[in-house]
């Protein structure tokens, strides 16, 4: 049996994990609040309309990029606000990975700093609108 290595490192891991767990929950709650707010506006503005989602058209172009989504939210468009909440939700695990980068760096665990950077690169590429 391979014994547990440095206990100090593991305790550091545990403290970091608890912090990251709290961050995730706060991010989800913040995102859900913004989505709910946008949802109320959506229902008030379009509640009576009869949209057809049977054929794929896709979200309108402004709601497909970070810049566009934020601009629509600032303009107080209901779907822009809801989409901003969804964007916050997607960003939450990305932020979690970014913070564990600092945790590994503080432990001078360079192997995991590199692995975390790889994951972070893949995540930010997708969010930044890179289309493979």
């Amino acid at each position, binding site marked *: 049996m391979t014994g547990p290595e440095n206990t100090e490192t593991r305790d550091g891991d545990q403290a970091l994990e608890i912090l990251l767990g709290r961050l995730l*929950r706060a991010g989800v709650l913040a995102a859900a609040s913004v989505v709910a707010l946008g949802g109320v506006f959506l229902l008030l503005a379009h509640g009576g309309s009869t949209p057809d989602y049977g054929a794929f058209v896709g979200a309108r172009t402004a709601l497909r990029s970070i810049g566009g989504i934020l601009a629509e939210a600032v303009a107080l468009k209901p779907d822009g606000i809801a989409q901003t909440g969804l964007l916050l939700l997607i960003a939450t695990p*990305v932020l979690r990975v970014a913070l564990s980068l600092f945790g590994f760096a503080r432990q001078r665990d360079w192997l995991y700093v590199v692995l975390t950077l790889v*994951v972070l690169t893949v995540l930010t590429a*997708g969010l930044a609108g890179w289309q493979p």
Partner: protein
Amino acid sequence: MSYVVLASILCAGSLVAGFLGALTGLGGGVVIIPLMTLALGIDIRYAVGASLISVIATSSGAAAAYVREGFTNIRIGMFLEVATTLGAVAGAVVAGHVSTGVLAVIFGLVLFSSALQSFRGAHDVGGADSSSPSAVRLRLPGHYPLEGSRQAYGVAGVAPGFALMVVAGGLSGLLGIGSGAVKVLAMDRIMRIPFKVSTTTSNFMIGVTAAASAGIYVGRGYVVPELAMPVMLGVLGGSLLGSRMLVATHSSILRRIFAWVIIVLSAEMIYNGLVGKI
């Protein structure tokens, strides 16, 4: 159907899906997509987008409770996230090039196998007695709380486990599901990581995996706020309720019933995909 009625149905259905998903451990996404496509006639690409969003919400919401117990292994999680995120990007790319019928058939098959797996129930093969050299080099072995002390465990099968994780990520990106069943299979059966460590670490990874393809989905217009809003809020509310009741109910009977529901849904998805109705 007016939008307010559609949103109410979606929210209520997602609430039930999230609730049952948390109680049975099968996840909410598996019922959302059949509900949207089969029952409401929504294009599967919208359904996949909304489902993926709800997967991030439930995974991230539940992770906070799990990590406190000290079972999550952050190094195993990060190492395997390299595999799942790359797989997720590949899955999202493939999703853009296959027909909706093919997507429906693949979804049905994955649904069917995850239901079958759930019939076998929880099984603890126990941790590996010794670690492979590559696992030691990657500092994957850890320990978890057991009766007041810490029980050390080894990790084996790093390369095949990593490969299966690429597949798990691919399915997640292709179908907008958490694919927690495949993740646990890779960690529990192949890497011989203790069951409780596998399930909690898997949950920790699901949100990150889903986020990798979610950005691509947004860029393609798969994520429509009108549909993702009621689904996300419903699933999140349902899963929070479900995780609170987890201890109080007889989840094994419920698990069986839910697994049968999933088998019926998977057959419907495969049939509709084959005849070109989706």
